């Protein structure tokens, strides 16, 4: 083609940076829009200027990868149109709508690679609205980006690799860790799970994390059923109560608790771009449909990284590069097409291996949907507006909702300012269980623009 294609990348995490880098390699100058103050995304989040901790201390076994990504991004800076601190809040046909402070702009594109990342996947626990309860990701960000622990005595509750990783990082940083409580059914060793063998180094790292925690004398319980996060309305969290696999109740005094069950893809922009979604039965969630290279069902829209498939940082780097090159090849860009031909087969193999691992992780640390369905009626499901499981069930029982958007209209669960990010998945489980229908039949919350709240005066007014 004669004109340089207009390429936009959303997100400056591992997927977004590798996508931008591939585009630059092909001789294109992309726009890179990122909400963060610095590049790196959440996993390789860079500490603020003036902080002095080493890469080894910040990123542990992943220090080299983090350093490489940051270095490569710094080298790209002059060759891309980088827009940090900028929220991509809507997408319409071939236009991305962004806001930086109070300034809005429209960025036209021929192709866009959305690398929007993920947030913690949350299950409500009675009392999780109390001050001092944070997501696992939050506990890690407090440490990585601000050198703080979320409390003096922290309980880690949930499941998945991040549960152990965050607890281990707290121990190593000298923070008080009270207990690690895993809802996964048994202490099957990480290496024993077949899918995990796809990435033996990662499986071994999991075992090393367990050793660090045991050596520090941190109680590790598996197969727990969360009962409550106790506390009072002034002081916030004071204890965490769980029932173990044998039915015995345990109470851990704590002033902070970090909870999370893996990650939930940030799919709002893909949804607003009208990408097709498919239900993924193993993890019981809806994800945008993509092909092996990251093509969505919408022409010109490509998806990569944890915002499309939760493969972790290594998978995100490979997927970001592949999706960007696929986009160029599809536009008939000759240099891009040549790079794509060269890289595609190996990248796909890498991604397949990561996907086997992903599947292994999901079966080793399952989403405990039965806990969501069984939450007591007085449990707060929507933290934004303090709406309970009982109110959500009433929208099914008395008002006849059989679908989550209908239930949202009646109960407002999913309508608060987090826009369903933290209540959506558990809410769907509650609706499905109350209606007695399969989870996939209750649908998924429709995304709304703006994907995050904007200030009222963030718009252009012609005087």
């Amino acid at each position: 083609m004669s004109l340089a294609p207009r390429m936009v990348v959303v997100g400056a995490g591992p997927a977004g940076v590798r996508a931008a880098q591939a585009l630059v390699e092909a001789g294109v100058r992309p726009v890179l829009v990122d909400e963060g103050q610095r590049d790196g995304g959440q996993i390789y989040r860079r500490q603020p200027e003036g902080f002095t901790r080493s890469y080894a201390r910040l990123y542990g076994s992943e220090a080299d990868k983090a350093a490489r990504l940051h270095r490569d991004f710094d080298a790209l800076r002059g060759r891309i149109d980088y827009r940090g601190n900028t929220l991509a809040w809507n997408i319409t046909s071939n236009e991305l709508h962004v806001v930086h402070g109070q300034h809005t702009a429209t960025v036209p594109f021929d192709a866009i690679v959305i690398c929007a990342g993920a947030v913690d996947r949350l299950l409500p626990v009675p009392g999780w609205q109390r001050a001092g309860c944070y997501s696992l990701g939050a506990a890690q960000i407090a440490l990585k980006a601000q050198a703080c622990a979320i409390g003096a005595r922290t309980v880690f509750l949930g499941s998945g690799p991040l549960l152990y990783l965050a607890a281990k990082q707290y121990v190593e940083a000298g923070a008080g860790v009270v207990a690690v409580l895993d809802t996964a059914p048994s202490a099957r060793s990480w290496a024993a799970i077949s899918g995990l063998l796809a990435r033996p180094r990662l499986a071994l790292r999991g075992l090393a994390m367990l050793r660090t925690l045991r050596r520090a004398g941190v109680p590790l319980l598996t197969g727990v059923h969360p009962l409550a996060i106790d506390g009072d309305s002034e002081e916030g969290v004071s204890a965490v109560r769980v029932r173990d696999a044998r039915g015995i109740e345990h109470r851990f005094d704590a002033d902070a608790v970090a909870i999370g069950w893996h990650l939930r893809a940030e799919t709002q922009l893909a949804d607003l771009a009208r990408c097709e979604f498919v239900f993924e039965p193993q993890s019981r969630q809806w994800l945008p449909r993509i092909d092996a290279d990251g093509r969505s069902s919408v022409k010109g829209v490509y998806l990569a990284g944890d915002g499309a498939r939760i493969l972790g940082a290594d998978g995100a780097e490979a997927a970001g590069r592949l999706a960007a090159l696929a986009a160029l090849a599809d536009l008939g860009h000759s240099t891009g097409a040549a790079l794509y031909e060269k890289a595609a087969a190996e990248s796909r193999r890498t991604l397949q291996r990561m996907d086997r691992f992903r599947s292994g992780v999901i079966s080793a640390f399952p989403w405990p949907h039965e806990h969501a369905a069984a939450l007591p009626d007085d449990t707060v499901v929507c933290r934004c507006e303090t709406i309970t499981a009982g109110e959500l069930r009433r929208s099914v029982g008395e008002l006849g909702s059989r679908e989550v958007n209908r239930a949202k209209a009646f109960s407002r669960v999913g309508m608060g300012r987090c826009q369903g990010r933290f209540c959506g998945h558990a809410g769907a489980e509650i609706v499905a269980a109350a209606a007695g229908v399969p989870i996939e039949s209750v649908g998924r919350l429709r995304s709304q623009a703006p994907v995050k709240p904007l200030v009222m005066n963030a718009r252009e007014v012609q005087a």
Partner: protein
Amino acid sequence: MDSRFVRLAERDRATVEVRIDGAPVQALAGDTLLVALLTCGRRVRDSEFGDGPRAGFCLMGACQDCWVWTERGERLRACSTPVLMGMSVLTQPPESQWPETPDLRMLRAAEQTE
């Protein structure tokens, strides 16, 4: 204990004085507002729905549970706003909740000239 967050490292930074609900507080350069609030206290804001104080939740700009306000009524997300010398924030929305939008300002100006 009067603070929620515990500083574990990076303590050798310049101090930055900010005001929280009118009271002076020493933060460190590079702190977010949320860290400034939670290293000198235990809450960020109060739930509008009567269930007590909140202290943030996701720290990555997704939950919107850490909103504070400037004295002019502008809303800030504490987890992603760095502290600046002389900053003054309120943990309750100011009396007149709605910031004056450009069109409201024009409307007011038009009313005054009538």
